[in-house]
């Protein structure tokens, strides 16, 4: 060996792994640490890109857990409108590590934190600062808001208890919080719900150290519930809509994603049960020339999601072999027809008794 690079595989070199290839032939970015099989119970949460992962897993026959399922009789549009079936529980987007920690604290810690009691009111409707858009028109009362939140917390508990793989997509470093209580909001008050008050609300851009600490605390809560659970981290490739950092939004995006990527890498390199899946790289890297972004240069197109998920399944297969897929509907018992015939006879008798005698 003349130097440490001699004899390294093609994937180690930019020219052979990237520059000489058709972009869509680029692959093998992920060397998964643990198998993720169709029978594994998988939970997805986090930034908006996580919803694509959950949906793709479900479409491919994987056991994606929906721990707060939509009620029957809602249309697909209504399910979407009320944020059912987007993540494994109805939290809406969890953009930051701090928000994940807040949700897990509410779900699993016995004492209710001081910050948990804040609600936003507008025109007689109430909005949950942890998920202001979960009900498009808000809740009709604080009681209703609270009961709905309790249902979501129960769903989180179930999800964490049952999940064999917890997929968390990290989205943002920038956040808004309550100066006094420290409650971190899902979105800046006044942008969609609530009212901004500079004396009460402050901007905060989380540092690497803060995010790492919050993630470690969040993971500790989950680990206390399930020691066998695996965690798969991803970073959302979706750029910031806006920044309050004072920087150009491109710089702010680069700053934010770099920190999130670094935290994910740090966590994945430190524990066997935490892995990083490079969806960010598969969408955002230079060889793809932004082809997976919609015209707004932010939203990820379906072909981008497909590309990411193709890589996900291919890299799993390369490392662990082809999965045995569950056939759709396997294990379901055929539906029994209701005792309709007997009921029909009774209905006939009922009507004949009443009407035949005249």
């Amino acid at each position, binding site marked *: 060996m003349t130097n440490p690079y001699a004899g390294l595989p093609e994937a180690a070199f930019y020219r052979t792994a990237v520059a000489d290839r058709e972009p869509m032939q680029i692959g093998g970015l992920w060397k998964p640490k643990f198998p993720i099989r169709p029978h594994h119970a998988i939970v997805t949460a986090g930034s908006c890109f996580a919803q694509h992962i959950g949906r793709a897993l479900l479409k491919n026959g994987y056991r994606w857990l929906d*721990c*707060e399922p939509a*009620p*029957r*009789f*809602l*249309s697909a549009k*209504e399910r979407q409108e*009320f944020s059912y079936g987007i993540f494994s*529980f109805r939290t809406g987007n969890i953009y930051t590590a701090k928000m994940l920690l807040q949700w897990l604290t509410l779900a699993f810690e016995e004492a209710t934190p001081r910050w948990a009691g804040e609600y936003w009111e507008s025109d007689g409707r109430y909005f949950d600062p942890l998920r202001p858009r979960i*009900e*498009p*028109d808000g*809740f*009709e009362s604080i009681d*209703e808001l609270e*009961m*709905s939140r*309790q*249902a*979501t917390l*129960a*769903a989180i508990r*179930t999800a964490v208890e049952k999940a064999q793989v917890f997929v968390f997509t990290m989205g943002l470093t920038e956040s808004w919080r309550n100066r006094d209580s420290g409650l971190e909001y899902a979105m800046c008050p006044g942008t969609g719900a609530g009212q901004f008050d500079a004396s009460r609300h402050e901007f905060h851009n989380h540092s690497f150290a803060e995010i790492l600490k919050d993630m470690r605390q969040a993971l500790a809560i989950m680990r206390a519930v399930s020691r066998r659970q695996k965690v798969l981290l991803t970073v959302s490739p979706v750029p910031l809509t806006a920044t309050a950092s004072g920087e150009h939004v491109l710089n702010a995006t680069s700053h934010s994603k770099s920190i999130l990527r670094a935290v994910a890498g740090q966590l994945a390199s430190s524990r066997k049960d935490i892995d990083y899946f490079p969806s960010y790289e598969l969408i955002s890297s230079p060889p793809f020339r932004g082809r997976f972004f919609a015209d707004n240069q932010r939203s990820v197109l379906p072909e981008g999601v497909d590309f990411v998920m193709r890589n996900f399944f291919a890299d799993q297969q390369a490392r662990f072999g082809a999965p045995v897929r569950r056939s759709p509907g396997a294990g379901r018992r055929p539906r029994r027809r209701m005792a*309709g015939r007997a*009921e*029909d006879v*009774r*209905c*006939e008798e*009922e*009507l*004949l*008794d*009443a*009407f*035949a005698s*005249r």
Partner: protein
Amino acid sequence: MCAAKKNCSMPSPPADKAIRICIYGDSHLGCLKQALDQGLVDPRGYDIEFWGADGPYFRQLRLQDGVIRPDPEAEERVLLVNGRGRKFLRPGDFDVMFFMGARLRAGEFLEFLRRRMSRSNGFLSRAVVMRVARGWANRTRSYRYAGEIARSGAARVVYFPTPLPTFSGRDGATQPGPQEAGRCGDVVALGWSSLSEVAGSDGIDFIRQPDATVTGGLRTRAEFGCAGFAEAGDLVHKNARFGAIVLEQLFGVLEAAPVRAGAQHRRAAAAN
């Protein structure tokens, strides 16, 4: 003269301007017919005509171009129920179309809601319940017909859903304790009010099953079950006393917001 007539305190519309009511439905028409035949209600001021068919035939009644027609196999049954030779039902021939039962099994909706809301992760906001109620109601063909008739303005539409199953103590249903009854009661009340609101937005006057006939929120009191219901296992059909209560409810609704006899119901049409 029946007790209802003796004690009747409600003013009856003048006989010469009878409100024409078509009672449309399935085998649940039976208890209404019995109530009228037994004189348990005072129908003065109302010209009541039945139109419908029981289960298998009821499924063969179809609304097309504003007229409900039976498939050929159901014609005989429709004529039997109607008794006036009306083979086709034009809602515009009546002032009021009263849907009785007609497969809108409110008990199933309420039970679904109760089960869902009793789960730790099952809470639904009122806004979601409203959407669920609308989705559920519109799965029933008769409800869609009722909405279509209301929108057309052909007649005023009033709907009484399929009565709750009769409490028999044999079907696994138990009387809930006070705490459970309270929780269940809140959910059931939410279910009824959401159905009423949804129907109202569709131009339909919805009559929920009166509390006096209900036990445990989701069952009809045994005293209103059809004759021998427990032995026959017929928890579905109700007796004449129940029918009388339903008709009194209908008359109450019509008196609270009177319908002009002989005039087509234009409220919904005007709103559209």
